[in-house]
């Protein structure tokens, strides 16, 4: 049994979510190949080769993979799928984008967002915004799976595995990247942060969102997150959204500021180790999941908290 894990990267740096997917592959058991598809991405292949548990890295280095478009990436994976019992990718925006395409071309189901490996054909995945956990069994010849990062401890470093070049498939030529607007931030990435300070509609404006939350995040070395309401209102960029349809996070400390705690938000953060809620409404549902709840006006409480942490 050999498992293929598709690496996520930006041609320069391997994304940490790849390590969680490799950890899930290790739980399934068998040899683990990692596919690195990109352009001028040899450094990524070398990083992937040093991850514990990896048997071999397959490097498809060609112009048509530079932007990781779903059409070309899926075609490459499908062309090389025959050797594998399982094909895994992180359940990130990128993984969710191309992997269902792979599954359909192979005429198999995709098992989305697994949080547990029960056996090589049986997995647990959340449904209904995490209000239920389904145990599903696949009879398909190849199991195509996306992995929820927070559910698997990232694989560490190991002995270097061999890197083999893989020929690219033809360019489909039906999609082209025009440009990206990426949020530049010195902060840790949301899904990898130890601490997250997250703000909701109560922040009231983009200016407040930054002026109130950032000093606290700076002091704690935290990433900044947001509720959907805060993103929709333009207080924070879209990729700050935590929840059922945003990012799934599980930091050691999650501080929810002016967030009511709708089930769609809880779906993205209730696996955090310690949850703090600051909300002026004592009945806010967020308090039902908070380890420490502070009923207060955030505009007083957050500056006071900042001052009290040395």
């Amino acid at each position, binding site marked *: 049994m050999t498992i293929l894990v598709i690496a996520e990267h930006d041609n320069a740096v391997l994304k940490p979510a790849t390590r969680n997917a490799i950890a899930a592959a290790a739980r399934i058991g068998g040899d683990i190949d990692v596919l690195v598809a990109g352009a001028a991405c040899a450094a990524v292949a070398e990083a992937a080769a040093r991850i514990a548990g990896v048997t071999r890295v397959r490097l498809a280095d060609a112009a048509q993979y530079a932007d990781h478009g*779903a059409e070309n990436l899926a075609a490459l994976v499908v062309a090389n799928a025959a050797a594998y019992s399982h094909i895994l990718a992180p359940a990130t925006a990128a993984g969710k*984008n191309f992997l269902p395409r792979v599954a*359909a071309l192979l005429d198999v189901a995709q098992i989305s*967002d697994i949080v547990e490996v029960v056996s090589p054909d049986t997995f647990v995945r959340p449904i209904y915004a995490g209000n239920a956990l389904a145990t599903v069994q696949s009879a398909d010849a190849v199991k195509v799976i996306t992995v929820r990062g927070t559910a698997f401890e990232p694989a560490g470093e190991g002995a270097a595995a061999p890197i083999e070049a893989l020929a690219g498939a033809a360019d489909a030529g039906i999609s082209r990247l025009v440009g990206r607007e990426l949020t530049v931030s010195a902060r840790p990435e949301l899904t990898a942060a130890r601490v997250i300070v997250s703000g909701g509609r109560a922040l009231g404006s983009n200016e407040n969102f930054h002026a109130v939350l950032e000093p606290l995040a700076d002091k704690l070395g935290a990433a900044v997150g947001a509720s959907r309401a805060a993103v929709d209102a333009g207080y924070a960029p879209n990729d700050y959204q935590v929840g059922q349809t945003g990012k799934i996070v599980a930091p050691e400390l999650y501080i929810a500021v002016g967030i009511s705690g709708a089930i769609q938000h809880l779906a993205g953060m209730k696996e955090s180790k310690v949850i703090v809620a600051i909300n002026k409404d004592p009945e806010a549902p967020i308090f039902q999941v908070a380890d420490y709840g502070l009923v207060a006006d955030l505009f007083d409480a957050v500056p006071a908290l900042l001052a009290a942490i040395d």
Partner: protein
Amino acid sequence: MKILVPVKRVIDYNVKVRVKSDGSGVDLANVKMSMNPFDEVAIEEAVRLKEAGIASEVVAVSAGVAACQETLRTAMALGADRSILIVTDEELQPLAVAKLLKAVCDKEAPQMVIPGKQAIDDDANQTGQMLAALLGWPQATFASKVVVNADKTGAAVTREIDGGLETIEISLPAVVTTDLRLNEPRYATLPNIMKAKKKPLETTTPEALGVDVKPRLKTLKVAEPAKRAGGVKVADVAALVDKLKNEAKVI
């Protein structure tokens, strides 16, 4: 150009889901059902493209039990011109839905299909991508902006990705899946609800479309997740800092 919008009937997003005690699934008896919220965004986008003179016709499609026709009536009240119901009592998984939609596309030849990015019941986030694959079309998932080229042979789509936004140019026909920021869906007005009752709703079946919808995944059990132990309320900021330092030891 014709736009096809797949709409799914799901448990309303406000309903607190309950897992059945026998572990066979969640309790759907007597709970409010609605159109998947991402599909409301999809209908809105298609209708706006029609109002802008870019699309000529908006066709809503739903697959599932007979009651899905309510969802289709809602779609038509929101502006879809007609709809197609693929009726079946079988459990439908994303690959099966994608195959059904492909069969409909083969007949209808739309220039664009706009599914939601994710159904809020199965949280699969697969159907649109699978449909694009089966059709051999390009895909633009998680769209927050769609601009169709003047000659309608392509579109520029801005996508919500990890880290920010990206814009891609795709050739048409294509599949575009909606994210929350694409637009703010309108409400159906009473006159439009009345008008929708007279709009055409065609019914077909998986058999008639020649699609095998047998589920590929078997659900062995559905369980409730572990509950978080309730926490405490702290009196003030000083007490909070004390707890975080000395009890939780996280700062």
